[in-house]
């Protein structure tokens, strides 16, 4: 019975991983991912660190820089750190706990197929579970990957008592503080957008057939990061993104 359940959990993990990879390949790039690429992955590491939205994803961007550099730009390579984080997460967390979390939080599956810091943060949490001696640093990295993790981790620390606060929560907070305070000091209000998944998919569908043509394309500011991404991803240097006398006008 025990063996059977272990085998079924392993099968579930493999299926989850498969779904993550499939989603990473097929899902159109989101506005958030396009912005991450445009603001944090494309510029130099130094410029990215000082970008206004660095606080929300510069750790992820550091990894994405490597994967994009190694395997050329595409949706998959931009999302590769998230997939790798998913693999680490599944490998590091005791299987039952991982299974429970996957079961209870289906959204976790999408965190490992999209270029954001959530998956990375979850992987760091799993690593902290496995290597408890360096748990404070790993939890600090989790918060630095995705600052929203500070809240649940803080609640867990408070519930666990003074020992956990002193030995784990404070060092984790200080680690995250050291990594984030400079980006946070330069943070600006996030760009508000009305671009949803339908528009994201439509941009890809509209641009895919235009590959290989020298065109002047006009796009509203909301979707410019997406257009820039596909231009770089498809290596279409001949595309000119301009509002002056455009041959293709993207509008939603």
């Amino acid at each position, binding site marked *: 019975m025990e063996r059977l359940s272990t085998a079924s959990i392993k099968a579930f993990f493999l299926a989850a991983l498969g779904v993550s990879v499939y989603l990473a390949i097929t899902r159109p790039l989101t506005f958030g991912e396009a912005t991450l690429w445009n603001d944090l992955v494309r510029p130099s590491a130094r410029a990215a660190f000082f970008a206004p939205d660095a606080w929300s994803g510069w750790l992820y961007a550091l990894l994405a820089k490597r994967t994009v550099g190694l395997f050329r730009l595409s949706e998959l390579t931009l999302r590769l750190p998230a997939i790798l984080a998913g693999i680490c997460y599944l490998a590091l967390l005791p299987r039952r706990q991982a299974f429970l979390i996957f079961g209870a939080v289906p959204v976790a599956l999408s965190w490992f197929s999209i270029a954001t810091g959530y998956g990375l943060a979850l992987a760091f949490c799993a690593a902290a579970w496995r290597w408890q001696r360096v748990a*404070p640093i790993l939890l600090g990295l989790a918060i630095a990957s995705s600052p929203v993790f500070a809240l649940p981790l803080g609640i867990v620390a408070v519930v666990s008592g003074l020992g956990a606060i002193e030995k784990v929560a404070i060092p984790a907070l200080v680690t995250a503080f050291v990594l984030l305070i400079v980006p946070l000091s330069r943070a600006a209000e996030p760009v508000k957008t009305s671009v949803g998944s339908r528009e994201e998919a439509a941009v890809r569908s509209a641009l895919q057939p235009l590959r290989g043509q020298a065109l002047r394309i006009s796009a509203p500011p909301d979707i410019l990061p997406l257009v820039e991404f596909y231009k770089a991803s498809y290596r279409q240097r001949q595309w000119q993104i301009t509002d002056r006398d455009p041959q293709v006008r993207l509008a939603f």
Partner: protein
Amino acid sequence: MLRVVPILFGAAFTVLTCLAAGLLLLRQLRLSFDRAEELLFGFLTGAACVSTAVFFLCVVHQARTGVFVAAGVALMTAALWCRIPPGAARKLLPTSKWIYFLLLGSIFLLYFFIALAPEVSPDGSGYHLGNVIRTYEQHGFAWDFQSLYAWFPQGLEMLFLVAYSLGGMPAAAMIHLAFLCALAGLLVCYGRRFGVPRAGLFAAVLVFASPVVGLVGASAYNDIALATCIYAVFYLTEVMQEESNAKLLSLLGLLAGFCYSIKYTGWIAMPYAAIALRRRRMMPFVSSAAAVALPWAIRNWIWVGNPFAPLLTKWFPNPFYSADLEAAYLSDLRHVEGFHHWWEWPLDLTIYGAKLPGFLGPVFLLAPLALLSLRLPQGRKLLAASVVFSLPFALNPAARFLVPGLPFLALAMGLAMQNSPAVLPALAAFHTVLAIPAVMPVYCADWAWRIRSMPVRVALGLDPGDSYLQRFIPDYWIKAAIEKYVAKSQTIFSFDTRPDAYLDRRIVVGYESSEGSRIGEALSRGESPKRYGIDFVLVNDRDFTSEAIKDNAKSIGLTALEQRNGTTLYRVD
């Protein structure tokens, strides 16, 4: 390089004179401190004694270099003659002390060169050293000079005077730096004595490397000296609760009184100590505090008719400064613009320094963690002291007015985090890195008041100081202009304060006295200031009457002589 010798001599001579006086006093009181505490409390109590002695020399107009040298040599000889036995050795510091000492040493180098360079701080080159130079030139208080800045107690300026007479302006800044070093030393000693050595070392770095503390501490200000003496008062009240030695009361009174004589906001130290010492015989405390603080009040009472001039003018009306001027001055100090949400305040005070002058450093954003120290009696005392001594910030919202409460907050933060592995040295190192002049622009506002470079060549005299002064003091050009146009006996009127320390002429400033206010009003009405004895006028473009003066210059009888950096020098015809 020769420039450095008199500066260091002047500073060292003053510090050693204070130390000798203090050690002699400690010997008389037969107090049991360890070696480090003896040196620190010796310096601080000696500073209080020397300051008071110089005050009386100024009253009788005998504040002369020769007198200072003779008295200093006599005190040092007496201290050596008495052969003060070394204090008891205390517990050792943890091995991690070297990390903290390395951090303190590296940042000290930066401050050392800032202090050694020509004085460029606004208040330092303005009234702090302006008063010192005026007093030095007249060998005593300049009774005919009426300005609110001359009426403030000048306990620290009395020590600046000794240092200045031997080593010039940078020697005065060095004295302030000595107080900053003493503060770091006291924090380390406190941690060692009261069983929290790592928290003490951490607090020392946190305070010492705070950007505003460094900038003010390496300039001829008085805020750090005040913070040091306030902390010493707190330290002694804690020692008294441990040892209950009645002789400490005199020492405590001396330091509490010295707090008042350094800066009016230091008066809080006296009631604080009195409350902390409840149910004890207070006579030695009160008498020694009065010996240091009262002379300043009496001087003002006789001189201006208001013992607390320029404050409480409603209670002590006088012809030199009206209640309206006082109200306008205080409201101007409190006036802050540009904040839309409450949370912008902590961010500006710790990171940006964009809307308030100076900032404490981003690590102080972790100050809420200090609340964890509330579970310890020591933590509760530290946090209470931090709140009490930060109260003057409400009257003058500048980061430096938070400095007296900062050592207590830093210690409470250290207490809260001392059981967290590796956190204290890591945070101390990070804080020090963030205090490096080249790193600060990464997070603070471009225009934030901060140390901008390490002027080694200027400090050592390898580069001329003039270009350095012109870079940091926009009004420095006035020095050449007034030396060219204004005779020594002539008087200048200005609506705004000027770098007094560099301007060897009498300047009447509009808001600093009733006389200045009358002249300003006359100019606003289009009258010539000649009948008030004014020969020249300095007007800034941002002065509210500047346009009217410019338009009516001919009818008022003003001739523009020179204009630069938004300031015009007029001759009164």
